[in-house]
């Protein structure tokens, strides 16, 4: 089966700046593919090239097995949900959804039938006559998706459609988007700078930085097995320690930070003694104890002072200052409520499994 989207060595330059650097990837039919990256990483440029608003300087974009070279945006089998949705305020909901079909010259009775059906499927049955400004944020998003999907595109592009919503609605719309994608089975290409959106929604995620993909994989792979320091730092919360390798084995390296903290981690890629390196430890990997003896005996233990308590329900954490190096480290609080009475200034012990911490060679400056 040919993938719905094939991007082959696509390059885009703006003046002297290269926004997209020789990028290649494929998106399988029916999957939910996300491109995750900080603002300015080139993800919007990439999406606009797929939609046809910008032409690539080099390379080829193939959609549904057909090369898109020289094909105008209004002739591509691609539809897009814009960042601010871009619903037509001068038209009713029904007219918005009917717009594309009207442009294709579909018979009027057929348009009425398909618009009704599509609105029914997105849970807005009978809303044809409503004005766009009468809808809630979530309903607007559903109209924007309905307006695109009624054309049965090979590919639906979504440009941070949740960015403008408030947190509560965003959480709700995430679930709704995932369900809509599953129900329609259309291939979604979604761009976002919000890692939680990318992790929750996607079958596969590409992490983009400076016009390149750092890593492409399942959300689990990105989270548990980051391939580059950028991915480790960008996806999920992480503690980062920079230093030099002081001992190296195939399964475990020892890193000594500039301030004297010694820690062990699993190496990612070849590392030799003396190399500049950085280690990442996720907040939930480290264990916390009032008494050092409670921590597993086969793991290195550290002591620290509570700097501040960051209560955030299930994501609550504590900021510790390590006793020797004075380095700050973030550790997740267990959900058992065992540390509910923890106070700022208290001294505690912590440790972690070196196999769940990862160490990379530092990128050359």
């Amino acid at each position, binding site marked *: 089966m040919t993938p719905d989207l094939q991007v082959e060595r696509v390059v885009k330059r703006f003046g002297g700046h290269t926004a997209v650097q020789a990028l290649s990837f494929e998106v399988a039919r029916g999957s939910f593919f996300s491109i995750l990256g900080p603002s300015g990483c080139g993800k919007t440029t990439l999406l606009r090239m797929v939609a046809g608003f910008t032409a690539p300087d080099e390379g080829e974009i193939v959609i549904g097995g057909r090369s898109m070279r020289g094909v105008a945006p*209004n002739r591509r089998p691609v539809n897009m949900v814009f960042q601010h949705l*871009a619903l*037509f305020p001068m038209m009713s909901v029904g007219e918005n959804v009917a*717009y594309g079909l009207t442009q294709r010259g579909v018979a009027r009775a057929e348009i009425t039938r398909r618009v009704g059906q599509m609105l029914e499927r997105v849970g807005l049955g009978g809303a044809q006559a409503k004005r766009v400004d009468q809808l809630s944020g979530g309903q607007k998003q559903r109209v924007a998706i309905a307006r695109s999907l009624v054309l049965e595109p090979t590919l639906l592009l979504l440009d941070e459609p949740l960015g403008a919503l408030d947190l509560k609605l965003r959480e709700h719309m995430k679930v709704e988007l995932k369900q809509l994608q599953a129900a329609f089975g259309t291939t979604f290409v979604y761009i976002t700078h919000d890692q939680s959106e990318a992790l929750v929604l996607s079958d596969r995620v590409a992490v983009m930085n400076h016009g390149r993909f750092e890593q492409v994989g399942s959300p689990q792979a990105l989270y548990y097995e980051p391939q580059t320091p950028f991915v480790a730092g960008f996806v999920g919360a992480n503690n980062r320690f920079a230093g030099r390798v002081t001992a190296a084995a195939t399964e475990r390296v020892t890193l000594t930070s500039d301030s004297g903290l010694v820690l062990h981690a699993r190496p990612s890629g070849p590392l030799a003694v003396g190399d500049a390196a950085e280690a990442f430890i996720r907040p939930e990997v480290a264990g916390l104890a009032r008494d050092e003896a409670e921590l597993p005996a086969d793991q290195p233990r550290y002591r620290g002072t509570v700097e501040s308590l960051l209560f955030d329900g299930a994501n609550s954490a504590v900021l510790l200052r390590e006793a020797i190096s004075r380095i700050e480290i973030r550790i997740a609080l267990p959900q058992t409520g065992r540390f509910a009475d923890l106070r700022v200034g208290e001294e505690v012990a912590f440790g972690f499994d070196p196999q769940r911490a990862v160490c990379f060679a530092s990128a050359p400056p």
Partner: protein
Amino acid sequence: MIAESHRGTMQARLLLLLLLAPALLWLVGLIVLPHVELALLSLRVRVAPRVYELSLRQFGTFFEEPLYWHTFVRTAVMSIVATACTLLLAFPIAWTIAKLVRGRRRALLFMLCMIPFWVSETVRTLGWTILLRESGVLPALLVQAGLAPVPPELLYHDATILVGLVYTSLLFMVVPLIGALESLDDSLIEAAYNLGGSGPSILRRIVIPHAAPGIVAGCIVVFMLTLGNYLTPTLLGGKNSLWFTEQIYTQFITRFNWEQGAAFGFLLLALSTLIVWLGLRASGQRFGDVMRRP
């Protein structure tokens, strides 16, 4: 407490009144009072020296004399044509300034639209006569290019009057159009294009509906300016111009028949009001919305 806050609102009202005073004086002194006087003038007729009677005779004369209402209808039709031409010409200019260029080039383009208005209307219009008269620049060029055997007279045609009127009105159409087009979100155009829309259909279904209040505002201003213009039709059309404001001028200044001139003035006011109302009805816009836009 209550008395104090009452005094506060009184003070605020007084301040508002003072701020509005110049505008109110202007409206009452220069618009309302003269029109009351003109209304009285238009409705009286002289029966003997210094003896006047209430009468509709001036209005009767207008309908009995074909030249008058012929000029009246001609002025209206020409003004509508001039407004339409101005809109067609101003739209691409406004689109370019509002959507296609940025920064310095945009300021430059806007200034190019403004520059002709730094010169007085009289000088500007005389500039056209220098270009277009028989011994002028353009006829000479036409002869040189072999397009005409003798220098043609380009002045004193209806087309010449239209050119002059469109030129004079262009800025008043461009400004509200820029305002209306600037507020159109580019992503709406991209979205329409993405959904399979073509250029003309996007113009018809997205751009024009969005810009409608600006278009109507510009048309109203240009239409009123054109209908009430005196200088341009007279200078470029000469005796052939047959512009209604000329008839009013003749009655007041040449014939010294103020009663007839006043009646004509009111007929012109009624005409412009009627056509603006019809225009608003036809375009489905409300006067309040249109005036709020620019």
